[in-house]
């Protein structure tokens, strides 16, 4: 096997990075239109993973993740506008269900697509006010999480964790105490190094999952669980060490770190924590 990006994938990664950095200040609607224009919603699994990692890095405010990885694999098509999917058998914590134009439901009768407004899902009040999760109250739901949804959330979390590490590295380089940058202390270095290793581990498992989905390899189910579990392990290290290394600054509302900490942690809690997926890998 070959486990590196080809030239086109590298180019895509660069374009996504540049676009996301440039359009950070754009209103949500314009961001969404940019993504559509660039064809990112139609991207095949590996390319989609590249896009999602960068959108995770940017804490993307749009319903892109839900549309591409919760709606599309269920409905087998893209929605008119935005979309999401209900596949937990309960409709309890559905990403973006309060604002999706179309919602795909996995029911005992198969997949049913409903108009979002009609379903009127109730948005839940959560710790991260930028996160849209809602309750979808319909009967006959059955559980069946798509591999793509697990991979999508996992690779987005890898992006969040990369952002946390970048913010922390910048902080410990410029913050001086005892006359030196705190990043020169070994206790700080080792925490940062552990974050880096956790990110690399989660990243390769997320891309392996995307690759098995792209090639419809029989290992795809296990690979998706491994990706989600590793992303969960990764956010644990990055939340813990990242928050700690930022010192009291990280405890305030007035910095960027809090946004990414919350995104990373929410990713673990949605669609099953690391521990749940590990247990499922053993049966």
């Amino acid at each position: 096997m070959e486990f590196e990006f080809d030239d086109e994938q590298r180019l895509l990664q660069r374009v996504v990075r540049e676009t996301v950095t440039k359009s950070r200040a754009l209103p949500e609607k314009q961001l969404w239109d940019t993504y559509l224009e660039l064809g990112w919603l139609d991207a095949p699994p590996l390319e989609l993973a590249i896009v999602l990692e960068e959108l995770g890095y940017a804490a993307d405010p749009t319903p892109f993740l839900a549309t591409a990885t919760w709606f599309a694999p269920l409905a087998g098509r893209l929605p008119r506008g935005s979309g999401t999917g209900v596949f937990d058998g309960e409709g309890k914590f559905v990403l973006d269900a309060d604002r999706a134009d179309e919602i795909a439901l996995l029911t005992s009768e198969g997949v049913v697509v409903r108009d979002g407004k009609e379903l009127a899902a109730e948005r839940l009040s959560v710790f991260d006010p930028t996160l849209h999760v809602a309750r979808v109250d319909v009967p006959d739901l059955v559980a069946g999480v798509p591999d793509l949804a697990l991979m999508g959330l996992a690779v987005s979390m890898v992006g969040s964790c990369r952002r946390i590490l970048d913010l922390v590295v910048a902080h410990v380089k410029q913050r001086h105490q005892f006359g030196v940058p705190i990043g020169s202390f070994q206790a700080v270095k080792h925490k940062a190094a552990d974050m880096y290793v956790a990110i690399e581990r989660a990243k390769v498992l997320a891309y392996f999952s995307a690759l098995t989905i792209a090639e419809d390899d029989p290992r795809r189910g296990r690979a998706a669980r491994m990706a989600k579990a590793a992303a969960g392990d990764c956010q644990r290290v990055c939340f813990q060490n990242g928050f700690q290394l930022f010192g009291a600054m990280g405890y305030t509302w007035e910095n960027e770190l809090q946004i990414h900490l919350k995104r990373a942690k929410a990713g673990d809690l949605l669609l099953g924590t690391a521990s749940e997926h590990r247990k499922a890998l053993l049966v």
Partner: protein
Amino acid sequence: MRLAPDPEVEKFRADFSAFLDAHLPAPEEATVRSKSSADIPDWARRWQRKLFDAGWLLPAQPPEYGGRNATLPQVVAHLEELSRRRIYHSFNPQGLNIIAASLLTFGTEEQKREWAVPLLRAEITASLGMSEPGAGSDLAGLRTRAVLEGDHFIVNGQKVWTSGAHDADVLLTFVRTDPEAPKHKGISVLLIPTESEGLVRRPFGSIAAPDDFDFNEVFFTDVHVPKENLVGPLNEGWRVANGSLGHERTLLWVHYAERMDALIQDAACDEEWHATLQMDVQALRLLGYRLLGPDRNPVEISVLKLLGSEAAQSAELHALEQHGAEALLHPVQTGPYTHMNLETFNASWFERYARSFGGTIAGGTSEIQRNIIAERILGLPR
């Protein structure tokens, strides 16, 4: 990115596999066991010689040095095939992978002929004299002194942890040749035969047993070493050191993956740690494959070493605890006996866990790896 194997690599793997099927020594030929990392039993010497002659010993080398000019992915396939069958590559691993490999990179033609080829053919064995009582993680602080007098170096000082030295024929020894220069710039490398006058070796036991001899102290008192035994240019030993350890470390992950695969089988259970172990070995492989690509930063080897050694250690600890008081029993066998490998890999749970610290201490401790990652990948200040 693609899952499908490269046909040229698979052909290579199949050829090697067929060679192993046809030539692997039978268990009854291999009853004499290796006693240290520089002790190769006669049957294993014949086996290594056979690999050398067939070009299956160090496949990346040209045929005259036991290879077949293989590509890096083919070299990985070669190691994977050995590890899949639990075959130990060489019973003098440092002699093969560090010392002979360094001589092939830095040695003169004569040194290649006189030392590298006999090492590769398992006619002699070698140990690596790097660490000293005062120079471990800070290897460049080494103080064993060599002074050139006429056509000989006179060596005085002490090495320690020199694995297998008591069974080795020669030591690749790092010495200080210019005490005035900055510490990285005054080091040279000498091949020192262990029978040299004034050289004394004292093996000492490992945590596993008082007579489990691999570690050695080596004392040098006015040892005369011919100046043609200098490897690489005078005072450029640090470059050789980096090259030597580079050889060892580039594909070290394959060996961690092998231990982890063995543990997956030997300690099969439905506890969460077992799933973690499966994820760790998968991630390690993927990182290893990714490292084969162009434009990768070689410093990333530290990520693989840290992840591999610590994941294996954590899993060995879980396996130990899972067996409760049973894990105290020693010696017992905890995995299948494989005549082509070391017994230590399927030793008692307690011994396996204890030996996992070899991974997190030798060849750059986990703490040193974290410093490298923080400083050379993340750019944190020294």
